[in-house]
Each structure stands twice: as structure tokens, then as C-alpha cells.
């Protein structure tokens, strides 16, 4: 069930409100695709965690485990390449859901020349202009005005594209988010703001950091409509995506989606995790896991059997293992790469 911001607003002289989203009814193939993508992200992130532990990945590494339904449901609703996507440092899942080859993502994590940023960006800094994926940003909140800028470019060119701008519950407290909201609504920019509310910003829970902890209401004073969505259910997410994209594509300006979700792992790989109980994490895993839920429904609806789903799991594991082998064996960048691409031109 989605929850809407309390107020409606006047658009172009008439009252208009965001319609109530409905849970998406997928075709059997579509549901299996969602399942496979969520599983790919989960297995990929588990493998990344292992490679980190073995010292093959260094620095900060933020895993997306638990949040898979959000990016899977939203990315399925846009056209990579036509639309634009931008997010923060927790970006591996976004890369995969945007159709980027797991091998070049993993090779970026291991800092190899075959990585999508040639090993120079690492976990937090991945980009694919071809697929309309604009990063991969390490500064909390900085991607929000960048997302509005991508939307500005879509509107300017009149190409019908939309910018999906993902940020966290913690990022939602940065001042530049509200400067952006104002401009985005003022100029009716085609941007979907997606708050991935996984309930914690490092060790700070939403209600310890937010005066208004119902984050879908954060756009109200800018007249931006907000929807609160169950981000642990890929079909709810996909349903909300339809409503949001219809709204934005029809020129009505930005919309805000608060995705209620949860991260199972620590904030990054160095998180002592004393700010929440083990029971809390275990409870969400057992009661709300997006992959388990999809699995149950797929079997119950007769879309696939348990065995068929196990075969998908095996295929995904093999794909991830291959990506990891590739990322381990790929050579490091040439030392000459150190000084390339600082600027585009030579002067």
C-alpha cells in the first residue's frame, strides 16, 4: 500500500493529484525477470563482501543487500539510455539493474583496467554514459542537484527523458536537497526523487536525525507530491514507478517516492553495528525479504516451480562466480593511466 502526501495541489489552474498507485500485475516472464535481477544483485553483493574480506576489494564498499526490490522495480519502468539515473555510493545494484555487465562492475571493485571506470573510480564511482547511468557519487546529497540537472537537460532538449535521482534517508537532511526541490518544482523538471529509506544513515536511525521522519512529506512546502511505498515488495515499487513516471512525463514536474526498505549488512564494510539489534535485522530478513516474497508468489501462482527457481539461482551464482574470476584475473591498470583523463584537452 502506498501512502500519499496529505495535500493535493493546483496544477495548471486545475486541481490534480497523483493517483493512488496499484500493485503491479506482472506477466509471468516479467516476474521471473524481477526475481532474477534481485537475485543477481544479492549474489553479486555477497560475492563482493567475500572479495572484500579477502583483500581483493579495498576502501569503502557499501552493499545493497536487502534493498534489491527498489532498484529492480524502478529500473524496469524506465528506458536505459533515454532516461537518466544517478545515485550515491551504494551503487552496485543500480549498475546491474541498469543492464551493465557484472564483470565490468566487479572488475571496477577490484581496481582493474577492465573495470567500468578503468579501475580509477572503485566501488563508489561507477558511470555508464551509454546506459544513462551518471554515478556513483561519494558525497552524501550531492547527487540530488546533479539529478535535477540531468532532468534540466532532458527538458531543454525536449527528448522526453526523465531523471531518476536516488538518495538515502540520511542524505534527505542535506540542505542542497531542498534547494533542488525548489528549483525542480519551480521549473517543472522531469525528475523522480527516490528516497531509499533503509532506516539508517550509518548508525543514526531516521527518527534520531529527522524532525519530519515521514520522508515522503519532505517535498510538501515545495508543492512536490510524495508517495510512501513498500520498498520490500518489487511489485509495489513497480506500481508506484508507473504513477510517478506518468506524472513526470506529462510535464507536471517532479515527484517524490519514499521507498521504505532495509539494509541487512553494515553501512560499509567497517560497521560495528551496535545501533540496532540482531533480532531487528533477522526479523526483517525473515518477514520482509523481497526475494523470498517474490519466490513464494511465483511458486504459489504456478509461474515456476521451486526447481525452476533453483535453476535460476544456479545460473545467477555461475554468472557472479564468473564475474569474480574475471575481476580477480584482469590486470591492473597500466601505470601510465595515472595521469590520463584528468582533463579532456591538453593545453
Amino acid at each position: 500500500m502506498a501512502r500519499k502526501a496529505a495535500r493535493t495541489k493546483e496544477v495548471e489552474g486545475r486541481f490534480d493529484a497523483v493517483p493512488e498507485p496499484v500493485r503491479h500485475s506482472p506477466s509471468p516472464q516479467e516476474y521471473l525477470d524481477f526475481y532474477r535481477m534481485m537475485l543477481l544483485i544479492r549474489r553479486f553483493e555477497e560475492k563482493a563482501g567475500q572479495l572484500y574480506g579477502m583483500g581483493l576489494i579495498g576502501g569503502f564498499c557499501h552493499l545493497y543487500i536487502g534493498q534489491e526490490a527498489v532498484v529492480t522495480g524502478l529500473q524496469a519502468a524506465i528506458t536505459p539510455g533515454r532516461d537518466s539515473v544517478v545515485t550515491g555510493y551504494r551503487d552496485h545494484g543500480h549498475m546491474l539493474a541498469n543492464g551493465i555487465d557484472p564483470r565490468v562492475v566487479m572488475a571496477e571493485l577490484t581496481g582493474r583496467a577492465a573495470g567500468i571506470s578503468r579501475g580509477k573510480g572503485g566501488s563508489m564511482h561507477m558511470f555508464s554514459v551509454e546506459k544513462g547511468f551518471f554515478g556513483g557519487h561519494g558525497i552524501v546529497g550531492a547527487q540530488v542537484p546533479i539529478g535535477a540537472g540531468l532532468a534540466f537537460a532532458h527538458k531543454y532538449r525536449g527528448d522526453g527523458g526523465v531523471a531518476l535521482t536516488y538518495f538515502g534517508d540520511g542524505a534527505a537532511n542535506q540542505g542542497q536537497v531542498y534547494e533542488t526541490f525548489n528549483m525542480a518544482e519551480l521549473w517543472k523538471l522531469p525528475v523522480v526523487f527516490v528516497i531509499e529509506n533503509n532506516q539508517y544513515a550509518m548508525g543514526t536511525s531516521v527518527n534520531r536525525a529527522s524532525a519530519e521522519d515521514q520522508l515522503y512529506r519532505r517535498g510538501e512546502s515545495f508543492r512536490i507530491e510524495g508517495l510512501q511505498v513498500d520498498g520490500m515488495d518489487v511489485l509495489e515499487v513497480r506500481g508506484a514507478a508507473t504513477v510517478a513516471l506518468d506524472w513526470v512525463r506529462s510535464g507536471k514536474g517532479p515527484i517524490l517516492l519514499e521507498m521504505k526498505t532495509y539494509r541487512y549488512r553494515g553501512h560499509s564494510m567497517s560497521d560495528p553495528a551496535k545501533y540496532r539489534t540482531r533480532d531487528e535485522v533477522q526479523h526483517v530478513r525473515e518477514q520482509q525479504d523481497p526475494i523470498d516474497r517474490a519466490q513464494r508468489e511465483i511458486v504459489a501462482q504456478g509461474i515456476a516451480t521451486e526447481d525452476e527457481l533453483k535453476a535460476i539461482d544456479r545460473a545467477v551464482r555461475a554468472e557472479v562466480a564468473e564475474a569474480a574470476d574475471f575481476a580477480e584475473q584482469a590486470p591492473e591498470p597500466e601505470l601510465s593511466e595515472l595521469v590520463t583523463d584528468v582533463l579532456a584537452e591538453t593545453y
Partner: protein
Amino acid sequence: MELRLPAMSPTMEEGTLAAWLVKEGDTVRPGQVIAEVETDKATMELEADEAGTIVALKVPAGTDGVKVGTVIAEIAVDGEAPRPAAASQPASASAPPRPLQPAPGAPAAAPVARPAAALQPAGGRRMTVREALRDAMAEEMHRDERVFVMGEEVAHYQGAYKVTQGLLETFGERRVVDTPITEYGFAGLGVGAAMGGLRPIVEFMTFNFAMQAIDHIINSAAKTSYMSGGQMRCPIVFRGPNGAAARVAAQHSQNFAPWYAAVPGLVVIAPYDAADAKGLLKSAIRTPDPVVFLENELLYGRSFDVPEGEHLVPIGRARLHREGRDVTLVSYSIGVEVALAAAAELEEEGIEAEVLDLRTLRPLDEAAILASLARTNRMVVVEEGWPRCSVAAEVIAVAMEQGFDDLDAPVLRVTNADVPLPYAANLERAALVKPSDVVRAVRSIL
């Protein structure tokens, strides 16, 4: 499957296996916490990745100094044919974060009176830079009720890098304040609180994030005293880690010292060892001027001797870490470690290098720079940062303008490469300043 002790943070090399939460024969679920591992930073929980059964525990609970990569348990993973362990030991690609040797202990020598920079006597209690900083804050908070700490994760989480560990427990939420992720806002709020009579210590999780707030540091804090004709002061400390950490890439690895050191109205401090970290932070908290206090994440875990009792280090005075007559190596913060390692290497070749630690970057201890130059007639500036418009460039200008007659060779700077810091391990190593670069520079001017 062999379970190896994972690296649980960017800088972890070993840990204590504090406790096993499972025993042999137990089944485990994914996400179940199976062990507690202590590092110098914190106690962390080790989770099972997959469902399976614990076949054997290979390292008993309570074992210290377990190296990352050690096999600590054997697990039979459910439903998967045993696959040969995917990766062997950490590949050569992931060598230890920084190729730096621990600093050699400073030779004991009689303290020389100011203004010459002096060697400090050895001795005192051994502690990490992290603990020294925490003690400095705690002592000043006990001494002055107006002092409070504010920043992201400083209270309940005990600090993102554990520098504020224990402060919440001692001083409570009124004086140890967790903020939202709102650097611009809380930096400005800190300035206002300072204007309003308090003594804020504003922690930036790292100085990379202080860029969100730099307007308040420069336009609000640094200019207050001057613009008000001395009527209004702004006693505030902005502190946090600065410079490159380990493999955290371009947006999280930069040295802002030259930026702040360029601004009149600020005091800028960047200590190297624990004694200076403590003594200078205490002085910073007491001064009526706004201070930018630049720490270094890689130094937090290093241990040094810190004098017992009240220990204050004056702002604006450099420190000699070692004497030598052939060349002066000038540096600050983690660059001092590089300079000391280079000096040790040069000593083996019979070259005596003097190592001068600036400690305060604004105001710069020009007298100490010039006095050392007068003794050695040769100088190399070592900086973990970019070369252009650097602190090194400033030190060279001082030598040119005021020490020209003492110079027997051009003053050189040895710095990081002039590029955003790359992520790849080999490129990062190539980009960062290292002792061998310093040794080469010294040889070229002798």
C-alpha cells in the same frame, strides 16, 4: 569451505578473535553472527554468508593478532558441491595500504628554548593518536563547561573513526551532540554558538565533507574578528581526518591544508604524533581564534609517547624530530612519517637529514624553517598532497625570500602526483608520496 578472517575495514590488517557465537556442529543461517572480532577501532560482528554447518573452529576465542586471511573455521555449505576456494590469499594487487615504516623514536636531547624548534624529550605514556585526541577533548571539557562536541556519529556511534569514544558516556547528550548529515548547517550553527559564548568542537567525519561547509569556515568564522573590529571573536575548532586514507578514491582522499592555510583569520594545525595531537588540540580548544585542526586517518592507530599530566603545545611552533647537518626535510602530518623514513634510509648512506615538523601551518613558523636552513643549506619539502599551490610552495617561497643567502641548492618539493587520487591499488601507490621519492630528491641536490 574455509572461512578466513576478513578485512572488516579499509585499514584492518589483523584483529582479535574476541568470541565465537557458534560451536562445532552448529548450523548457521545467512546473516547469523558467528563471531566477534576486535580491531583497534571497534568490535565487529562476523556474519555467515551462506547456510551451512560449522565443521571446525580453527582459531580459539581470545586469540590476539590474527592476520587477515587466516583460516578461522571450516564450514560445510548447504546444497553446494564443495567448490575449491575461489581466491587464494590477497592478491599482490592489494598490498598493505601504505608502504610506510613506523617512525623511528625521536632521539632524546636537551630541550632548546624558543624560538628555535626543539627536539622533544622522549618518555611518557604510550597511546594512539586517536586516544590522545580523545583525551585532549575530555580534559578540556572537564576544565571548561562551555566546550562541547558536535558532528555526525560523534555520540552514540562513538565517532565514525572512534575519536570521540566514551565522550557521550562521560559528558552526556547535552555536550556530545549527534547531528544529521548537514555539514553546512551544523558548521554555521557551531559558529553561531561560538559567537554566543560557547566553545564548540565541530567534528567533520572527514574534511572532504567540510567542503559542504567551507563557506561558514571561511566567510563566517575566519572573518568575524576582523570585520567586527575585534569586538566579536569566534572560538571554534573544526576538526577531523584530512588527506588520503586507504583506497577510498578521489572524492574521499585529499589534503585541504593548503586551502585553509591560505586564509587570514584562521589558525591551521596539522599534527603528526600523539603528543602533538594532544597538546595542540588542547591549545586549539583554548584559543579565542577559529582553528582548523587537520588529523589523519592513517595515523589514528599509531602509538607514540605522550607526556603525563597537563600537556599543552604552543600554536605556531615547528618541531625538530631529528637533527642533521646535510639537508632539512620539512613536512607536516603524515608527511613527517615519510620524511622520517627517508631520513633513516639516508642515514645508511651517511647523509644526515634534519626533519622539521611544521605542526602549525598558519601561522607558519618561518623562524624555525630559516634556522634549520641556515644549518643545513639544503631543503626538501615533503607533502602528502598535490604539488600546485601547496604548503610546500609556501615553504619554498619563505626560503627564497628570506633565506636566499643560506641556500646551496634549489629547494625541492616531493608530493603526491598532480591527479585526483585513483582507486586501483597500483595507481594509488604510484600517486602517493613515498620515502624513496624523498631519498631521490635529496641525492639530486647534494
